[in-house]
């Protein structure tokens, strides 16, 4: 695990704020824009991409159970002694436990302890303590935002919140409460409850949650020229599945005369294109449940989705029946499985370079997006032990769109 000292973290997070907002809150310089990134060259051609933060649909947010502003930690233990023992096993020292739990209120409820720490304890907790404690809390389903923290994929918080209605004070709160992911890729924020304290109205509360719970998807474009367009590029995007006659489309694009590009939404199969940058809708759950990562991956090349889920009894059989283990280099359409703690915790579809197609959670707050694989790992790697295995779709070939 790589940890970053708290002062360094603050230094990384806050300068962007001071550039944007003056001491008295006045704007002192124009807000910088995000940059377009260039992916490494490869058989996929020349890709460029940029982030688009996707906000919850308003009607979805209204169904969201807004947490109390009181920070709550739930631990499964029958006695105080057992709770202390669990904390020690998780790596916290006696001194860290004392500081974190100093002045807290505890409610014992059958076999769980509900702990309400003081504001001071939450704010002043050293990063290392926070990392260890919150990793422990992530193991209990009652700790919603510890189990699935808000994932911040960059150091510049101003940049991350750009376009949202989140105010400066809340962003400062986030800068104090965010902590590095176990593998050092990005930051987690679990104390969403605390940040709600600054909200003075229900509207501000919703705007804050909108800002915090956004998901950043990538818009990816393939840049083409007559010189760079080769049959190999078409072969790459066709992936042997002949799911679309890609080459004529690419040839048409290069007839443009301005350094042509095509959105790769046009190069992926029909079903993932339908869901790209979409949040689930109630219609998606008409059969009783919402799509999850396995539904997303299994149906990537299918013209009609099949109702299979990550907890389906035949999940592993289906994986082995329709996919085969593969070695790098990854190919378009490969299934990447994230393993942690001896089990599969997530899967996504490899697109190109370090970009994947993913649905990170089975709930209605998680859209289907293009994301960088390192961010997918950062998002899911709560324990810091994620490894990836690659599977490739077997013949016979699936139906084309």
């Amino acid at each position: 695990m790589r940890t970053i000292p708290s002062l360094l973290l603050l230094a990384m997070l806050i300068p962007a704020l001071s550039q944007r907002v003056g001491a008295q809150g006045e704007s002192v310089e124009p807000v910088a824009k995000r940059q377009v990134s260039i992916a490494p060259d490869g058989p996929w051609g020349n890709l460029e991409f940029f982030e688009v933060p996707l906000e919850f649909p308003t009607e979805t947010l209204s169904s969201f159970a807004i947490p109390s502003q009181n920070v709550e930690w739930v631990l499964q233990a029958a006695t105080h002694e057992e709770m202390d023992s669990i904390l020690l096993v998780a790596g916290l020292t006696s001194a860290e436990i004392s500081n974190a739990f100093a002045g807290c209120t505890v409610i014992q409820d059958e076999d769980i302890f509900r702990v309400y720490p003081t504001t001071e304890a939450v704010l002043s907790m050293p990063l290392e303590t926070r990392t260890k404690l919150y990793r422990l809390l992530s193991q209990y389903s009652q700790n919603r935002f510890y189990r699935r923290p808000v994932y911040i994929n960059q150091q510049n918080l101003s940049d991350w919140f750009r376009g949202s209605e989140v105010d400066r004070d809340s962003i400062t709160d986030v800068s104090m409460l965010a902590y590095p992911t176990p593998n050092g890729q990005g930051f987690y924020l679990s104390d969403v409850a605390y940040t709600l304290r600054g909200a003075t109205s229900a509207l501000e509360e919703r705007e804050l949650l909108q800002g915090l719970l956004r998901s950043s998807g990538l818009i990816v474009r393939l840049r083409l020229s007559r010189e760079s367009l080769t049959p190999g590029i078409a072969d790459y995007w066709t992936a042997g599945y002949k799911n679309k006659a890609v080459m004529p489309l690419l040839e048409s694009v290069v007839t443009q005369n301005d350094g042509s590009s095509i959105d790769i939404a046009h190069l992926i199969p029909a079903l993932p294109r339908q869901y790209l940058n979409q949040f689930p809708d109630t219609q998606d759950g008409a059969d009783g449940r919402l799509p999850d990562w396995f539904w997303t991956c299994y149906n990537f090349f299918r013209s009609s989705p099949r109702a299979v889920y990550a907890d389906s009894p035949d999940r592993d059989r289906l994986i082995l029946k329709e996919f085969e283990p593969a070695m790098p280099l990854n190919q378009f359409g490969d299934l990447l499985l994230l393993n942690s703690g001896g089990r599969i915790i997530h899967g996504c579809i490899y697109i190109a370079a370090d970009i994947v197609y993913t649905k990170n959670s089975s709930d209605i707050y998680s859209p289907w997006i293009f994301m960088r694989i390192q961010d997918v790992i950062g998002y899911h790697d709560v324990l810091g032990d994620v490894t990836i295995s690659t599977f490739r779709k077997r013949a016979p070939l699936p139906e084309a769109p």
Partner: protein
Amino acid sequence: MPEVTPSAEAAEILQVEKTVTTGPWGTLEYYPVRLEPPTTQFLQSLFGKTTVWNFGVLTETGALAELRGIGFSEEILETLRAEGRWGRAKSGLEVTVPDSVVESITPDNRLALAEWFHSNNYDFFSRITVNIEGGDFSAFTEDKVRPEILELVKTHSFVRKGVLSFMDLPFIVRKIGDREEERETFIRTIFSTRALVVRLLIDETTDRAAIVDYWSWGERASRVESIVKGVQATMGVDKIDIVHLLPPLPRRYLYAFSRISDSSVHNTPDCFWASVHFFKRSPSPRVLDSLSIEHYLAHDFTEVSAEEKLHFGDIVCLLRPEDESFIHSYVHIADDIVFTKNGASNLHPFILTLKSDMMSLYPHEGECKVRVFRQIPGR
């Protein structure tokens, strides 16, 4: 309205300018692309090598009399009588046509024959006639079609009411011979479709609220707003492909072809299927049932005056004026840009195209009655 109206006159002209149009939809730029059906869409019948004409309920004598009536020479008729193989199939009287006849009939004969089939045996006409999109042979580049084959296509094609058409596919397949790859390439080329890639231009001065209002009709505004905001917040990005602004189902099918799984026992997705599903999340098998369009439109849509300014997502139905029977429908996107699937064939993709290009495939219907239907939000 468009500022530039360029076109690619021939395959060797590679510089195609983009067209720009501004209105309540914002500023759009678009350019043509050509889509070829993947080989997975091909039915074996496309590769048939036997030229067959079908005369329905007529007898051999009656068929020859009809051909004489539309201008076929006695010499051709004699060859057809002597060398053609006549027989009655389930679908009617058929004659296998020898190459000597295919090669000797004049362009006028061919056009007259097409008109006769259109009037007297429309199903057969639909099966054998290919409308060459774009009205020229620019898709038939040398790397796809040998010059001598292209020459045969040119000499055997005809213009019917403004549409460049062809109905001698088996003849060309015979000429290509056993070269499987060349045959496939030819089929893909002749069935290729012209479509548009359309992008919304966005900069810091773009009126985001107006754009979002226009493009989010009938569904959630937040998704469209997120995309537009994302573009505005990114340096070096000033446009977004409108695939990201379309509702889920047209996004799924755009530039794609319908599949067996989309079909029912009697029908496959067609223009109306594409239109009525525009704002839907998933397709309904019910839309493949043969019911009146009112059945599908009465509850979820309101009819608006055809004179009214069209909204994004409006369904435009074209009907025969004499009996209001259905001809075609499409979805209005912006300006002259429409979303359509031209016909029920699996070889015709779902596309964005110019209304004027789309209408060039429906010339024989003359003046149409137009009815416009607008989705009721939330339905």
